[in-house]
């Protein structure tokens, strides 16, 4: 009788066709260890089997790109031998099941991806999406996720400088926790995962292996059902203290010439790290599992290979460097064990108790993993929505207040004050959380990087192509609004079940839009992550391709913030306004409607306006700048006022448009800027072919808009700051 029954195959998430491929590759029936290895390597999470056909179409090259997708993280060159290494990755499913540990280990995992390559992490960002505030689990999830992110990042001593927090009913059963880490490395000293050197030792460092997280990767690749809660024991527990030691030990070893290759043990742990190293290097590995440091007794080979215990790394060392490397890890009180040898067999052979417990060919398994061209249906175009077809509010100023105090528009100070955003001493005053882009100086230099994470899921849902473009363009604007030049992005694609053609259509459309924007803006994708099956009982999330952008400013003293700076300065609106209210925040929050098309993203205008704004900031002609996005001009003005405490006098330049369409329309490629010399700025805009007009001046302590009314900035701020702490102060949730 066969030991591997169809039930066992199904439990491992392999389809019948996939199992046939397993039999073909093996030439015999696999044993349970081998089956387990196939199952995690071919999970959606590790193999990208539904998405890779489309991801391959994304632009990934530019002269400043050192390393694009495929490694642990992407790398760009920012000059002076400084390399920036960054990536965003989701930890959605684990965070829903156990929010504190799920989010914490997500942060820990993404930091390992970055320091594995030789970078010291210098900034973290997090894009979080939760269900509606009224949902009974939301408050508990927000509490746990925020505390988990802080608990890990704060202990690591890496500032958490930016991100997003939004609420929508589509995330009620599938929250999104997308963690981004940005690191700084010496461009001459970068580490990759390709193993080499027959006979070289394979070394395990970090924490011991326990039974935690077994089948985490396969869990992240299936839909949630009612019994998912029972999978709780598979959630890993993070130990940021150990990770901090691992970081310091790895960076210390990287200063020597001992390392041939290094790879962190993330999803699918020892299996995926060893296979990736061997397959990238075109070599084989013999591993003796008896030498794996173990936290629990009687662990089986299956458990060791599939464990997702955190804070572990696998390295290939040069011969003769073992003792020196061991001394460094012992100094940092970490386990160090030689568990294997590089071979020329092209096979992974695992030994346990003197017996061969698995013997697999590496390349067919790692590289010839399934690739699907899943059927897809493009999202149908929506009918236009004329500004006149949207009811005007009774009071536009009250509407501004309502938008800036809504769950999605309010201040997220409650969240980011729980993150140490200043440790490492390089977060600039203007670049602290709550602005357009976070800004962190390159230590000991005048350079800084600007970072932003963005996506507007309601746009992507309405029109995946425009929504994909918009997510990229918004990070581009947020970075440009500080004066920094956007360099590259990481994409974290969160979607529903790809086996549904309409979901696959969203994915295909979003990839197309992202790719178009990247090309137009000279802003390639250097790393990314895909999270599919974000569905509960057939209800998918809004398609959420989160984009993390990174830019560089050569002289950080020239950067500007988004708050008004001085009374009497002119306020200039840059970019064309057409009053687009389809899919707007106004429509959703005030009118309770979600119809209309997403705004069109004119990529030529995005590029032109971005270049103009950045150039004027660096020339010292702009004193403050803010990108316009959700909530449009009205909310943008309010945000600049609240940030500074200063008011403004604004003219009504709505012209042919209804006032509310002018104020709340979400036309893209727009910025607000303040300047001491409006004449010069407007002349420069005209010369550059950029639409711009002065709409008012910074004045007093009230925001006054002709034809709409007046509101005190301090009242706006109070409302803006109030919602989140009030919501979270509600006693009806568990203590974390």
């Amino acid at each position: 009788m066969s030991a591997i029954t169809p039930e066992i195959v199904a439990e491992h998430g392999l389809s019948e066709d996939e199992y046939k491929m397993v039999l073909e590759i093996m030439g015999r029936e696999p044993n349970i260890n081998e089956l387990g290895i196939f199952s995690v390597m071919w999970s959606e999470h590790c193999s990208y089997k539904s998405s890779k056909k489309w991801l391959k179409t994304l632009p990934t090259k530019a002269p400043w790109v050192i390393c694009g997708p495929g490694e642990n993280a992407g790398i760009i060159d920012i000059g002076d031998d400084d390399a920036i290494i960054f990536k965003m990755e989701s930890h959605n499913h684990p965070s829903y099941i156990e929010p504190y540990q799920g989010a914490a280990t997500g942060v820990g995992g993404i930091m390992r991806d970055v320091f594995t390559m030789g970078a010291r992490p210098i900034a973290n960002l997090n894009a979080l999406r939760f269900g509606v505030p009224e949902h009974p689990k939301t408050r508990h999830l927000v509490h746990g996720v925020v505390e988990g992110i802080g608990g890990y990042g704060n202990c690591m001593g890496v500032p958490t400088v930016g991100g997003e927090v939004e609420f929508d009913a589509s995330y009620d059963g599938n929250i999104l926790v997308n963690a981004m880490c940005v690191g700084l490395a010496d461009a001459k000293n970068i580490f990759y995962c390709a193993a080499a050197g027959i006979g070289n030792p394979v070394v395990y460092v970090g924490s011991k292996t326990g039974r935690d997280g077994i089948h985490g990767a396969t869990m992240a690749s299936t839909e949630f059902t009612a019994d998912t809660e029972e999978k709780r024991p598979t959630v890993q527990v993070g130990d940021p203290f150990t990770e901090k030691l691992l970081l310091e030990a790895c960076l210390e070893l990287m200063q020597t010439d001992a390392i041939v290759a290094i790879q962190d043990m993330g999803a699918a742990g020892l299996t995926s790290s060893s296979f990736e190293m061997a397959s990238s290097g075109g070599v084989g590995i013999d591993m003796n599992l008896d030498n794996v440091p173990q936290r629990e007794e009687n662990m089986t080979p299956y458990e060791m290979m599939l464990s997702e215990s955190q804070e572990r790394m696998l390295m290939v060392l040069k011969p003769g460097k073992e003792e020196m490397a061991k001394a460094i890890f012992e100094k940092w009180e970490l386990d160090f064990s030689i568990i294997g040898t590089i071979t020329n067999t092209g096979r992974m052979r695992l030994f346990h108790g003197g017996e061969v417990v698995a013997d697999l060919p590496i390349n067919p398994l790692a590289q010839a993993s399934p690739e699907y061209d899943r059927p897809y249906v493009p999202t149908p175009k929506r009918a236009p929505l004329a500004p006149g077809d949207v009811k005007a509010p009774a009071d536009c100023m009250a509407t501004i207040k309502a938008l800036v105090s809504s769950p999605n528009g309010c201040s997220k100070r409650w969240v980011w004050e729980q993150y140490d955003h200043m440790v490492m001493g390089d977060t600039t005053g203007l670049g602290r959380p709550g602005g357009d882009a976070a800004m962190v100086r390159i230590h000991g230099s005048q350079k800084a990087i600007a970072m932003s994470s963005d996506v507007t899921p309601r746009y992507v849902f309405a029109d995946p192509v425009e929504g994909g473009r918009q997510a990229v363009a918004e990070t581009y604007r947020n970075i440009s609004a500080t004066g920094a030049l956007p360099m590259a992005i990481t994409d974290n694609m969160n979607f529903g079940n790809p086996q549904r053609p309409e979901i696959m259509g969203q994915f295909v459309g979003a990839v197309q839009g992202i790719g178009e924007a990247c090309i137009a803006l000279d802003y390639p994708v250097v790393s990314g992550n895909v999270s599919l099956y974000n569905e509960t009982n057939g209800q998918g999330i809004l398609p959420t391709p989160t984009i993390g952008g990174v830019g560089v400013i050569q002289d950080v003293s020239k950067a500007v913030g988004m708050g008004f700076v001085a009374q009497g300065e002119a306020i200039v609106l840059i970019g064309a306004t057409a009053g687009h209210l389809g899919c707007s925040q106004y429509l959703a929050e005030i009118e309770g409607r979600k119809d209309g098309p997403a705004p069109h993203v004119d990529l030529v205008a995005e590029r032109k306006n971005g270049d103009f704004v950045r150039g004027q900031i660096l020339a010292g002609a702009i004193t403050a700048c803010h990108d316009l996005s959700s909530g449009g001009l009205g909310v943008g003005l309010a945000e600049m006022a609240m940030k500074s405490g200063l008011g403004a006098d604004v003219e009504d330049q709505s012209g042919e448009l209804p006032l509310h369409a002018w104020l709340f329309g979400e036309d893209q490629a727009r910025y607000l800027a303040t300047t001491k010399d409006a004449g010069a700025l407007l002349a420069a805009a005209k010369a550059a072919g950029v639409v711009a007009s002065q709409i008012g001046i910074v004045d007093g302590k009230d925001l006054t808009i002709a034809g709409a009314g007046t509101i005190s900035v301090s009242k706006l701020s109070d409302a803006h700051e109030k919602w989140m702490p009030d919501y979270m102060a509600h006693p009806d949730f568990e203590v974390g």
Partner: protein
Amino acid sequence: MKAKVHVTLKNGVLDPQGKAIEHTLGSLGFKGVKQARQGKFIELDLAETDADKARAQVDEMCKKLLANTVIENYTIDIEG
């Protein structure tokens, strides 16, 4: 032998975590919880086989590290 150490805050020392537990238990409908105090439980596996010596060792450990006697009390149970 095994030693079980309970570390608790001294009476009169504010225990914000205990307060939060108390409050939340109340809001979950558990009435009649007069007070909740949170502490730590530490289990030690000792080579020592003499119970009195083991207790003396653990007492020393508590004073030196496991408890902060400015604000915390501790109790020790030694098991076979």
